[in-house]
């Protein structure tokens, strides 16, 4: 009792700390509302305000349908390739020491620091008509720029790090112990990979795939350079949205944008579920 009497309540500094924390949380919430929630809400409300029938109508114009189709096809090609690339790169970087390991790590992360539009221009310099390989491609009647292959390449570049970056820290943390024990119990390489390594990283892997997928569907900068924006042919969904907007087709633009927004929201939910799973795993 005397202890309490002699030590005055230290509410002063502690209170100030609590106030400071409230202030910071308040600012963050306000910024979130202004920067993120308001625009997302507006898109959904605008898209919905015309009524569901009109909404579907805006989406089912042939150009928009083609754009959705092209985006899906691109994702179907890019996501599996980058998943395999990400697993292979992460496996090499996390589980082995070899000369050039640091360099590989830097290269894998490079797309994060390169502006997508620069990547697009670079592809143009290599594969475009006036580009390095232009004459060769022309001579063999191969079309990469302003066609699906160019869109796929640009999307691959931009999203190359997503899976690898999720897996590298995870696999580094897990080390080689489980694999080594499996080897001592007589499992062979393929068994070890599919029964030990892959199950150990499954949630992190799914997380990387989900993010990669969302980014492929949403990529604008790099694709806008290499696609040529041919209506109904090489327009992906984000390019189509821009086009509708420039055509003053606000309703159509909002409807198409709401599709991407829904993809983002679904991604967010899946991401939260996976994060909880990853948390459980440790």
């Amino acid at each position, binding site marked *: 009792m005397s202890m309490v009497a002699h030590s005055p309540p230290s509410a002063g500094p502690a209170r100030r700390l609590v106030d400071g924390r409230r202030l910071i949380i308040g600012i963050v919430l306000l910024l979130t509302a202004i920067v993120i929630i308001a625009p997302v809400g507006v898109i959904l409300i605008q898209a919905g305000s015309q009524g569901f029938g009109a909404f579907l109508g805006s989406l089912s114009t042939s150009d928009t349908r083609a754009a959705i189709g092209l985006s899906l096809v691109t994702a179907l090609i890019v996501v599996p390739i980058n998943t395999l690339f990400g697993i292979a790169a992460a496996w090499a970087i996390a589980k082995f020491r070899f000369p050039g390991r640091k360099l590989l790590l830097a290269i894998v992360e490079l797309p994060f620091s390169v502006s997508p539009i620069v990547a697009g221009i670079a592809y143009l310099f290599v594969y475009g008509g006036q580009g390095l390989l232009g004459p060769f491609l022309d001579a063999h009647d191969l079309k990469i720029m302003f066609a699906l292959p160019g869109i796929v390449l640009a999307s691959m570049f931009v999203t190359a790090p997503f899976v690898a970056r999720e897996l590298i820290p995870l696999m580094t943390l897990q080390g080689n112990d489980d694999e080594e024990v499996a080897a001592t*119990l*007589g499992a*062979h*390489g393929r068994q070890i990979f599919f029964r030990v390594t892959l199950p150990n990283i499954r949630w992190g892997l799914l997380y990387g795939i989900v993010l990669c997928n969302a980014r492929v569907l949403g990529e604008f900068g790099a694709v806008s350079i290499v696609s040529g924006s041919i209506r109904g042919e090489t327009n992906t969904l984000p390019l189509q949205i821009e086009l509708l907007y420039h055509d003053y087709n606000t309703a159509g633009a909002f409807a198409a944008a709401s599709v991407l927004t829904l993809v983002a929201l679904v991604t967010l939910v899946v991401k939260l579920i996976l994060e909880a799973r990853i948390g459980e795993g440790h």
Partner: protein
Amino acid sequence: MSEQASTLSRPTATKRVPVLRLAGIERHYKEGAGRLNILSGANLSVYPGELVALVAPSGAGKSTLLHVAGLLEKPDAGDVFIDEKPLGELNDANRTIIRRLQIGFVYQFHHLLPEFSALENVMMPQLIRGLSKAEAAKRAAELLSYMRLGERKDHRPSELSGGEQQRVAIARAVANAPRILLADEPTGNLDPTTAHYVFDALAALVRASGLAALIVTHNMDLAERMDRRITLNAGKIVEF
């Protein structure tokens, strides 16, 4: 006891031939511009039913030596022999088969599969090898009762004490009746009394089944109780 002996013992050779022999093993790692020599001409023979203690400071290369002996790593020079057959030329698939059938490993941490019971953990290497569930379960139960864990065979690793977990790991290591047992600080995580108890079980098993055992330990009491003690000195093996 006779039943246990029948499942655990192997025909003993008339000639004294080493089960495990390391000849001129070299292993080095690149370090910046230079080279880090971990093993440079390591020679060792381990005979049936023999327990050899490997005692050396941290970083001396004990684990590296076990990895080479256990075909987890290839040496940069020299060769590993099992029953005097050289293994250096084997491809990966055949090395895997040798690891599966001839070599058992025990680590400082048990590395048992948490979702499975003690019995299932001991069945695992036998199932990998292709035995039927019934056969695997029979041998697993025998081994566990030999390790005095008959009552606990349906418990999961998390429901077992550290010493019990380690005894399950030992049973699992010998589930496929290997010729060689390699252990990297098998009692390093246990209190002294438990360490002795686990070591007793391991030593009895090695002697009963004529295994050749190479055991890394920091515990001098245990090292004294083995047949021979070796250490690593400048990458070479010396007895002491």
